[in-house]
């Protein structure tokens, strides 16, 4: 995406390198010189295509088309070239004041988006973006034509955030595709896309998307301020950005949400959040977020509200299970045996007969084993998947129990914990629970429930101290915002959610739907 303003502004960042300094020169009237300098700037290479043409109507003035092969759209290039050749071979009387440059811009090029370029550097960066450059002999400016293209992945169903009911489109690695997906959903003139370029080497395009008047101006300003402060050589994924712009450096909890679903991003925009899209990754960032956001799936709003509410409570419970269950098991079986019902205690005690390790070590062994299995499952080639699952399930589970190394109850606890951790819709929140689990296990093995409560208190204080772009992380609970509770643990029906989340969106423009839309039989009868 050639964007002159940004190209110039970010030119400053790269001016520190010696190579760039040399190239910071304006285009010369001499075409060959220009071409040669461009070649030199880009370091040559077979993929740089240069095609020289002559125009009959302008005394066979030479001009050149340059682009980098592979990142341009071949079809567009050939159509344009056809048009250029057609035009070059025709002879017509030209008005005195017309130059070839102007003629090409105004009459000849069959490309929508053009821009003027004055320096070699700009021209090179435009080419690196996927533009084609037209340089005319004797002109001090070149024309950059947007011919961005090349091989991109098609819009597919998102793999990490799946739904049963809801749109199946997912973001791709192409920023333009992603912005178009948003545009297609929100057809509002208030939708703003503001582009930035981050990364000295990668020059990654970043789009800050928000809805003017619905997003809070303070937040937008803060997003820009934090993005502008980033100075890094490369941005390959939105995770790079996330770590630079989150409010607190040391926290296991995600302070920005990520999504590869255009509908989730659009919902965030409609609630006054800001979406940051990064070129080269299907994962867009959403800010500011609160803790509860990570337990909401876009499907909650597509399914009936009663089941959505139920599922949210299930997810919250799962989060606590995946964080607490092993530590509670350790605490109760090694410190507070009195809390177990007698028959359960007897069967647990029977299982533990002959187990060599203390419960804490047993739990650690199993948890680590499971984490290894999980990592293996993610990294291994697809073909050997079944083998790993057989080894994991049979050998490590059943055989360990039969050999008397691990008690069966511990296997149940660990597997349940593992399954519960997959219920959380946001993977990064699940990771937080996974890490905290181990610390709580140590505390439980040392101080029992008192240790767990101490750990939870630290966690609570930490969570209450967190902020996401200035917004308190535990928002609807602490500070308590009653009206936001409609969409936290319960999801009230759509007609009852008249307001956007208070204190996240612009509070002056909070009403999002008309009043009194609750369906009632009287209306239908009439």
């Amino acid at each position, binding site marked *: 995406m050639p964007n002159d303003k940004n190209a110039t502004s970010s030119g400053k960042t790269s001016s520190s390198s010696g190579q760039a300094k040399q190239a910071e020169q304006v285009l010369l009237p001499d075409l060959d010189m220009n071409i040669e300098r461009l070649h030199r700037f880009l370091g040559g290479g077979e993929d740089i295509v240069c095609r020289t043409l002559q125009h009959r109507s302008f005394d066979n003035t030479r001009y050149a088309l340059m682009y980098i092969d592979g990142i341009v759209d071949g079809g567009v290039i050939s159509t344009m070239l056809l048009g250029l050749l057609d035009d070059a071979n025709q002879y017509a009387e030209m008005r005195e004041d017309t130059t070839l440059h102007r003629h090409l811009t105004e009459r000849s090029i069959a490309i929508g988006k053009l821009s003027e370029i004055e320096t070699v550097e700009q021209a090179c960066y435009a080419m690196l973006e996927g533009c084609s450059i037209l340089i005319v002999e004797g002109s001090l400016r070149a024309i950059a034509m947007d011919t961005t293209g090349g091989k991109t992945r098609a819009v597919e169903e998102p793999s990490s955030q799946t739904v049963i009911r809801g749109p199946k489109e997912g973001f791709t690695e192409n920023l333009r595709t992603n912005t178009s997906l948003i545009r297609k959903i929100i057809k509002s003139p208030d939708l703003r896309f503001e582009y930035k370029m981050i990364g000295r080497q990668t020059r990654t395009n970043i789009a800050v998307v928000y809805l003017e008047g619905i997003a809070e101006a303070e937040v937008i300003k803060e997003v820009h301020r934090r993005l502008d402060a980033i100075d890094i050589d490369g941005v390959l994924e939105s995770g790079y950005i996330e770590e630079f712009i989150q409010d607190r450096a040391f926290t296991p909890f995600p302070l920005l949400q990520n999504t590869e679903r255009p509908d989730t991003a659009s919902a965030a925009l409609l609630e006054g959040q800001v979406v940051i899209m990064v070129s080269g990754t299907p994962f867009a960032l959403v800010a500011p977020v609160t803790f509860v956001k990570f337990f909401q799936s876009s499907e909650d709003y597509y399914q009936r509200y009663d089941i959505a509410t139920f599922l949210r409570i299930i997810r919250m419970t799962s989060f606590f299970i995946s964080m607490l269950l092993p530590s509670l098991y350790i605490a109760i079986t090694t410190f507070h045996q009195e809390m177990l019902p007698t028959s359960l205690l007897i069967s647990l005690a029977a299982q533990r007969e002959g187990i060599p390790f203390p419960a804490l070590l047993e739990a650690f062994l199993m948890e680590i084993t499971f984490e290894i299995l999980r990592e293996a499952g993610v990294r291994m080639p697809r073909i050997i998947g079944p083998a790993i699952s057989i080894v994991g399930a049979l050998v490590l589970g059943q055989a360990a129990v039969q050999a008397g190394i691990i008690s069966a109850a511990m296997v149940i606890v660990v597997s349940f914990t593992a399954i519960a951790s997959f219920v959380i819709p946001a993977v990064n929140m699940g990771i937080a629970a996974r890490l905290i689990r181990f610390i709580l296990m140590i505390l439980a093995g040392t101080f029992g429930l008192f240790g767990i409560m101490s750990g939870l208190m630290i966690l609570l204080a930490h969570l*209450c101290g967190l902020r996401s772009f200035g917004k308190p992380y535990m928002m609807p609970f602490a*500070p308590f915002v009653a009206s936001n509770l409609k969409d936290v643990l319960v999801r009230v029906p759509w007609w009852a959610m008249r307001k956007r989340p208070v204190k996240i969106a612009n509070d002056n423009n909070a009403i999002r739907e008309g009043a009194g839309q609750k369906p009632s039989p009287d209306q239908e009868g009439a």
Partner: protein
Amino acid sequence: MKPAISTMQTVALVQSTITPTIVLAVPSVMVSIAHHDAWISGIIAAVVGLVMALGIAMIGKANNGQLFVAWMESLFGKPIGLTIGLMLGIYYFNSFCVILRSFANFVSDIVLDATPLFMLTSIMVLVAAFTVMQGIEAVARSASMVLFLIMVVIPVSVFILYTDIDFKRLIPVFDTSPVRMAIASFPPIGWLSEVSILLLLTPYMKKPGSVLRAGLIGSLLSSSQLVLVILLGLTIFGQQLVPLMSYAFVNVMAIVEVGEFLERIEVFTVSVWFLTMYIKLSVFLFASVHCLFHSLRLHSERHTVIGLSLLAIATASGEWPRNMNSGLMATLVNMPVLLIMNIALPVLIAIGLLFTRGRRKQGGTQRS
């Protein structure tokens, strides 16, 4: 950003500053003095607590957003302000240690009898220090969330204890002499006077005008929990048995038997209590750090927290070799200190306020 805590969070802070100590050992002491009329003593204490909250809030209202120590200095001049700040700082630090030790004893009595006290105090101080480092705002927010939890736990506990409750055990009412009832109301009044923490909290409030409401509701919440524990103890065990129990609320929860699976749940109740205990510790640590930091004009708040925490660990685990001594400290020796610092000092400040207001008015008229 200047921290701002809402009115509800202030209520939660006041509540969790008073409640953890007041429900712990006080009920059985009160029952042993006032027998089955102890709950009336509780109500007397509640009324006195409300009056104290009212007084403190009135003083707090006179503050126009300055931090407490700075306010004192601007009112009475630097030396007096500094002295007040230092006194309060030392008082809060001392209370922090005493409370820390009594909480560690409690934890030791109830669940972890073999764990060295040093470890218990260390982990408690660690948690409190961490919480304080998150800022008073985070403490306040945590307090409000813990308050939610308590509001859920209390009705559930009362519900599952319902079958064991026999209100006839309270009859005849007014069987004990009024003098005994009055005496019995002293221990809780001592703890309820801790509502004076509001003096430090007011400058941080979003709406300092609602400090009165916060103080009253917070104090009321605490004393109603006290009365609830006394009532539960009396109606379930009767007046003769409650003095036998060091921690009545634990014993009350210990007799729960719902079917074969829900029994012996006092550890769960105690776990929720742990959270309020941590809030209380954090508030006291915050108060002592706040007073010392601002009166001595120290440079790093973080280092003040760390220093005081280390000192507190040493004091709490080393000062009283026997648990009995610290118990004595917590109930008897500390009581006059509590009353002096929480009632006498605010009264002096109030008198000073009245005095200086007259002077300031004069000053104002002279200037104009």
